[in-house]
Structure formats: structure tokens, C-alpha cells
């Protein structure tokens, strides 16, 4: 396995992957708990329009992607705060319009030799030193702000109305949070691709949710899972020659299935143990049941 680290591009890929592996679930925890998991997917699809825009304008797609994702995020939050439409309907609206814009822009940019596949499914192996720097800086900023507002974001996720009555600046924190989501989506798309970025934000959290009874544990467990799948997904893809983004997400999904199966078996066993325990304690009930039979 050591040979992986002898390639510069592989080291950069791993560093980018690990950063995104921490970042995505850290933001995703709050998204999932607010039942806003679909938000990541929406912003990811919209950011495809940013990629095409960058191509047409001749600017780095990293910059335009970020701009478009931030604009979409603010638009979604304003519509949501107005409270006249359902959250998921707003997401469907923005996602389909954004995707349509992306398709039209890509068709206009055809002459520019756009590598659409690379953006759709990620191109972590082509992460250059400049890209890596951007990912690390964005990662540090997002994680720093999440740490600073951790307990406020938890309260808003648990009970937004009560958080308001406690005097928290809920509206401003909501705007800040959605900007953090947009930042995260735009850098994570580089690693796992636009189509898969929401998987990395959502699935580790769902897996951790099956195994957590406290928010603290949910948070750290999600992060640990995110880092683990990003590392081993990359290593596996290197050895198997598979697509890195897809390998990472498949591994994440596999861990979810394992956790789901494991907790189901554990619960069934608990139930059986409880049933036998009550039977032993209450032999009369069992006896009555038998004698009153046919």
C-alpha cells in the first residue's frame, strides 16, 4: 500500500479526500437532522450550471461553481424564510431550474471542450496543488465556523422555534449555515462529483444515526465514518482501478447496510431475550396459556 504515497497526485487526492471526508458529514449532520438532506443534492446539481458558466466566461470553474451555489443557497433560504412554500417543493424548483440552466449553458459551451463527465462523477486524481489549497482553506473556514456555532446549530436543528425564544439569532444563523453548505458542496463536488456529493453528506450521518443515542456521538461518529470511507474508498479504487468517487460512495452505502442489518439482528435478539426473561419470571401466565388452549 505504501507505493500509493510515492505519487504526488495520489497524496493530493488523499489529502483532498480526507478533508472532504470530514467536511461533508460535519455539515450533513445538521442538514439531515433538519430534514433538509435534499438540499445538498439541489445545490450540487445547480453548481453544474456554475461549471458551464466558468467554461463560457473563461474563468476557473471552481470560482463560478462557488458563486452559483452561494446564490442558489441564498435564494432557497429566502423562499424558505418567507414560509409560503414547503421546503422540499422549493428544493425541487431550484434543482430543476438549475439543472435546465446547466444543460443550456453546456450546449452553448460545446465548442469549449467541456469535460462534463469529470464534474458529474468527480476527478479527484486530477486535483492540482492550487485545487488542494482551495479545498484545505474552505475546509478550515467551514469547520471553524461549525465549531464556533455548534451548539446554536444543534438547538436550531432540534427546535427552531424554541431556539428563537431563547434569543438566538436564528435567521442570521440559517443564512450562515446554508452558505456553509454551498461552500462544502462546491469543494466536495471536485472529489466525488456533482451527482454523488450529497451521498457523502447524508449516508454517513444516517449510518451514525442508527448507532447513536446522543447528538454528540452522532456528530463524531459521522465524521469518523466520512474520513474512513474517503480513505479506504480511494485506496480500493486505486487497487481495483475503479472510479474513485463511485467507490467512496459505494463503500459508504455498504457500511450503512451493515449497520442497518447489524442493529436489526441486535434488536431481534434483545426482543427474544426479553421474551424468554418474562416467560421465566411469569411461569403462571405460560401455564394458563397452555391450559386454556384447545
Amino acid at each position, binding site marked *: 500500500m505504501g507505493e500509493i504515497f510515492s505519487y504526488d497526485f495520489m497524496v493530493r487526492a488523499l489529502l483532498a479526500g480526507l478533508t472532504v471526508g470530514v467536511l461533508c458529514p460535519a455539515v450533513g449532520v445538521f442538514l439531515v437532522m433538519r430534514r433538509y438532506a435534499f438540499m445538498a443534492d439541489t445545490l450540487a446539481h445547480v453548481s453544474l450550471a456554475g461549471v458551464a458558466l466558468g467554461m463560457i466566461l473563461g474563468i476557473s470553474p471552481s470560482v463560478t461553481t462557488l458563486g452559483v451555489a452561494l446564490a442558489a443557497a441564498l435564494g432557497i433560504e429566502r423562499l424558505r424564510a418567507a414560509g409560503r412554500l414547503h421546503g422540499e417543493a422549493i428544493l425541487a424548483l431550484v434543482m430543476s431550474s438549475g439543472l435546465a440552466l446547466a444543460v443550456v449553458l453546456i450546449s452553448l459551451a460545446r465548442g469549449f471542450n467541456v469535460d462534463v463527465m469529470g464534474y458529474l462523477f468527480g476527478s479527484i486524481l486530477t486535483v492540482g496543488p492550487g485545487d488542494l489549497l482551495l479545498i484545505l482553506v474552505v475546509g478550515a473556514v467551514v469547520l471553524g465556523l461549525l465549531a464556533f456555532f455548534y*451548539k446554536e446549530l444543534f438547538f436550531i436543528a432540534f*427546535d427552531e422555534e*424554541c431556539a428563537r*425564544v431563547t*434569543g*438566538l439569532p436564528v435567521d442570521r444563523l440559517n443564512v450562515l449555515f446554508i452558505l456553509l453548505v454551498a461552500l462544502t458542496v462546491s469543494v466536495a463536488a471536485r472529489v466525488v462529483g456533482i451527482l454523488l456529493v450529497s451521498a457523502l453528506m447524508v449516508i454517513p450521518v444516517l449510518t451514525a*444515526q442508527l448507532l447513536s443515542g*446522543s*447528538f454528540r456521538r452522532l456528530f463524531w461518529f459521522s465524521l469518523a465514518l466520512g474520513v474512513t470511507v474517503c480513505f479506504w474508498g480511494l485506496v480500493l479504487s486505486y487497487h481495483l482501478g475503479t472510479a474513485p468517487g463511485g467507490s467512496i460512495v459505494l463503500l459508504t452505502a455498504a457500511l450503512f447496510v451493515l449497520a442497518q442489518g447489524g442493529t436489526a439482528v441486535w434488536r431481534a435478539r434483545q426482543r427474544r431475550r426479553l421474551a424468554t426473561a418474562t416467560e421465566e419470571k411469569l411461569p403462571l401466565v405460560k401455564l394458563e396459556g397452555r391450559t386454556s388452549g384447545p
Partner: protein
Amino acid sequence: MNPVVEVRDLFFSYGEEMVLEQIDLTVARGDFLALMGPNGSGKTTLVKLILGLLKPLSGEVRLFGCPVDRFRQWYRVGYVPQKATSFDTRFPATVEEVVSAGRYGRLGPGRRPGKDDRRAVEEALELVGLGGAGHRTVGNLSGGQQQRVFIARALVGQPELLVLDEPAVGLDSRALESFYALLERLNRDMGITLITVSHDTGTVARRVGKVACINRRLICHGAPSQVLTTANLARLYGIPVRRVVHGHQTTP
């Protein structure tokens, strides 16, 4: 001394339909007030207006003498929302995590709860009879226990005013008794001003100091024995309200 809550000539509508009309209400320090009225009478709306969660069409709400939109001392207010609409039992959070959130407004961002906060959480849990349950997951508790967790969260910031929206929904009669005993203790022994919302007049009326009956307008306001007359209850629940209150002047 300023009253805890002052509502002056308050009107509110969701779109076209007027939900609250010309509400005047004063809650003094140490009051134990029940807001009563049938479902859809505007009680919860009034609570949300008092807490600044909704903006009135016209009129004014003051908390501790300060207009609610400029009020900043939210640690003086505790709020227990309608449980069913505000809580997802699949949310993994421990009792301690939920209760200590009641101190976040005072704590400010970037600061972790300290020793004082942890002690306040434990005291609030003792007070509601959940001492030592801090590590348990809220979603695994019974309905009555969950209700007490949310009361503890509202109490942990040591509020002077506690507002509870339909706190008794889903409690059986025994839990209900101990619940109202707790509210009485908070009011009498700790001097906390209480506003509780209820759609049933039975149990609540025997326990509270004052009632305010609301059905779009303030129908009556005062001590339960004086206010809950057959005539008033008929106006509150029985007869179509629109016709009865037409042209009626409320005198608080």
C-alpha cells in the same frame, strides 16, 4: 413595576381571515393565567405573538415593559411549545443535551457549557422529577417524561415568565395531577409568572389563578370562579361566535 406581559389593541390575521381582534390583556408578576378557548380560537397565535414569533397586524405587545420586537432579555422567558409539532423522536439527543440548550441564549456562541450550566441542568431535572436521567435519549422516554424534559429546558435559564402551549395534551390523569402540582410549585414557591394554554376548562380552572377566554376576541378575563359562568362558556364554546361578539366591547 412593569407588568410581565401587556397586550394592547392587538389584531392579527393569516391572510384574509382575522384570527385575533382587539385583544387587550395584562399579565402581572406572579400571575398564573390560563388562556382558554376552543380549537382554532387563536390561543396559540396569541402565545406566538406574545413571544415575538409572529408580527401583529396592528397593536402592541410588551414584555417586561419593552416592545417585543426590541426585547433582548430572552433569558427571562421560558417557553414550552406544543410537543407534538416540535419534536422528532428519531432525533438522537440526550436529556442533558436538550435541557442545556435552554442556556445557550445566555451563553453566547463559541462557548461550551461550563460547571454552572451543568449544575443548573441537574437542578432543573431534579425539579421536574427527572434527576439522574441526563444521559438518557429523549426519544426513548414516555410522553410525560418528554414533556418534563421540555419544561426543564424552559426552566434551566431561570426565567421569570414561563409560557406553556397545551402542555397537558397526551398526559393521563395521574401525570396530569403531578404536572399541575409542579406548575403550582413553580408559581407559588419560585414566584414564576405562568401563562398556560388549554382547550379544556375542567382541570385547568381549578388550578390557575386567572383565566382569559379567547375566541378570536377576548371574551372574558378574571378569576375562574367569576369568569367561568354558564353564560360565558356558552359564548366561548356553544353559540356561533361571530354573531354573539358582533359589536361587543371587551372591558378588561
